[in-house]
């Protein structure tokens, strides 16, 4: 089994599905000859040609609007938004059109489209290359939101997403694009959308994270283990639809929950997770749910590591919660 980075696994997923299904096309800014600014689509142009790996004009609203039209025609477009920070010109097409077409047409039309976009900080990209906008899309009915943390899940989830009949936002944690290599099967396999994964079992605290913050969560769990705190880590993998059963089962066991995300705290997805846990596990809770998140500021450049919810902030949150 070959070892792959996250970038290679996503590239392999695109290649695998494009070979299998000629309705799949990739389009976006710089996705063609150069293979994307992060090289995620590298080599696809050479294999599939300019009609399936399409460099578009520099207009996110046009990329997504046209991709919706392609999906309505019966194709399976996979548009790339170069950085999630640049997705807003396409916001109307995503939330008012792609997300609503099935509903508003009484089920006549569907938009099978996967919008890929790198998210998150950690690359010294400042405000416009670092944001995590997942909540804005989760809040809008009709969208599936995926954020894998590792190469294996990324490939399997992307194959599931492309085969899904509804629009999917596929957020790629660019901080870990090349951070780890892992065994990734060749050819087809899928990881189901809507299923979280318990990546570390523990008795004392449930730690919920996704994307790049998963690695910070693991380091923190190992750090507090030395002090006798046994942390269970849930990698959400799919943010919406949320795997509520896995969360409830874990929190009912541990009675404590810490949630980590890069996006600002207020109205971040952690707020929804805390509400759900409180509604469903109230009598099992031994401590108030805790959120370790980005601050309610724009994403800063120089003080990036002060903004991000890294190990230095997760570890004390785990210790305090365990002692509550």
């Amino acid at each position, binding site marked *: 089994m070959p070892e792959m980075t996250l970038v290679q696994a996503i590239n392999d997923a695109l290649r695998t599905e494009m070979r299998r299904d000629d309705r799949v096309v990739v389009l976006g800014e710089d996705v063609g000859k150069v293979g994307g600014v992060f090289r995620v689509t590298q080599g696809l142009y050479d294999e599939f040609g300019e009609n399936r790996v399409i460099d578009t004009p520099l207009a996110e609203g046009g990329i997504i609007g046209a991709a919706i039209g392609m999906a309505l025609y019966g194709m399976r477009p996979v548009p790339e938004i170069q950085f999630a920070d640049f997705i807003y010109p396409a916001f109307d097409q995503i939330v008012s059109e792609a997300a609503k077409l099935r509903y508003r047409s009484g089920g006549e039309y569907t938009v099978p489209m996967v919008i890929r976009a790198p998210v998150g900080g950690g690359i010294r990209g400042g405000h416009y290359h670092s944001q995590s906008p997942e909540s804005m899309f989760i809040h809008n009915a009709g969208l599936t939101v995926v954020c894998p943390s590792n190469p294996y899940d990324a490939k399997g989830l992307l194959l599931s997403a492309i085969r899904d009949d*509804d629009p999917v936002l596929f957020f790629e944690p660019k901080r870990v694009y090349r951070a780890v290599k892992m065994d990734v099967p060749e050819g087809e396999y899928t990881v189901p959308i809507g299923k979280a994964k318990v990546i570390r079992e523990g008795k004392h605290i449930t730690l919920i994270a996704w994307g790049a913050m998963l690695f910070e969560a693991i380091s923190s769990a190992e750090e507090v283990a030395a002090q006798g705190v046994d942390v269970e880590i849930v990698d959400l993998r799919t943010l919406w639809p949320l795997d509520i059963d896995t969360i409830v089962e874990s929190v009912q066991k541990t009675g404590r929950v810490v949630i980590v995300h890069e996006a600002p705290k207020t109205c971040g997805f952690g707020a929804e997770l805390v509400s759900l846990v409180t509604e469903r596990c109230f009598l099992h809770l031994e401590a108030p749910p805790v959120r370790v998140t980005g601050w309610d500021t724009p994403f800063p450049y120089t003080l990036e590591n002060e903004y991000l919810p890294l190990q230095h902030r997760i570890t004390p949150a785990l210790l305090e919660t365990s002692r509550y």
Partner: protein
Amino acid sequence: METPHVNHARSPRSPGDGEVLTVIRPDGTADPATDPALPTERVRSLYEAMVRTRIVDEQLVRLQRQGRIGFHIGSLGEEACILGSAAAFREQDWLFPCYREFGALLWRGMPLQRYVDNMFGNANDPAKGRQMPDHYTGRAFHFGSVSSPIGTQMTQAVGFAWAAKLRGDDVVAGAYFGEGATSSSDFHTAMNFAGVFKTPAVMLCRNNRWAISVPAERQTASTSFAVKGIAYGVPAMRCDGNDALATFAAVRQAVERAAAGDGSTLVEMLTYRISGHSTSDDPRAYRAEDEVERWRQTDPLLRLRRHLEVLGGWSDADQERLQKRTEAELRACIETAEKTPPPRLETMFEDVFAHPPWNLVEQCEQVIDGPRPKAHH
């Protein structure tokens, strides 16, 4: 049906209108240089569709005033522009509407009953009562789903046409929009993508002079809307939008260009919105009645009728029969639609996704087991 007695047969012009394709001359004859030379039977069905659209329009406004439907957004005065263009597309082509084109939907074969059901948002509404009246959908008739945000259908139509081209299919997509929508970013991106990728998309600009209360002069400093095509490398034409044969001829040329692989065309159809923007609008607050009156005198229905009479294809008796038949048909549809119950409660939670996730299943149960509101409206 309210039609004026005078027919000047030419729409009022503005300076800088440039060349405008016209077919029907003031005496009702067709200009041989531009005449698409349709068989009389075809002209007749086009005229009948325009009259039917007018009758439905006027009756729906009445229903709204009576409080029997919530809203209507019509096409009074724009029938030639909407029907003439729709008729120029082929069976395999697709139309992406703005929200003023129910005439085109009926032309494409949507049963009147289904359209009226949409006006009532009842259980038989193809949109399942999820949208306001006149937000119809007609996939079986190759007709898109209406959304209220301005301009979004333009980029989608271009993407749709692009997909057809990539798949090697002989399919053209037409996108309707008002002149106000040319100010939106979607117009720019749609035209730009259409130009760069030579998509078989026909961009149908209904220049009806008003975007709610804002006149065309406030949408652009250009001498026309058609001129905008130049910057995108998209050929553009202008036609008299109150002349059904002129809109047919212009749009047919555009469809043929698209089908031949020559890419998109922007067609500016010069017409006028006789009514308010919708039943929620009172245009007396922002425009002079004499302007409306001038346009009333170029009524597109009278214009085509005169031509049909010249062709020997229409009589007063025909008119009366058509009127009676359409009114009776519409009356029956309204009666049926009014008696049809609202959509089932469960439908509120269906079609959000192909498969409802747990939160929608839970919320659906909560609604069904929960308290009921006093009334739906």
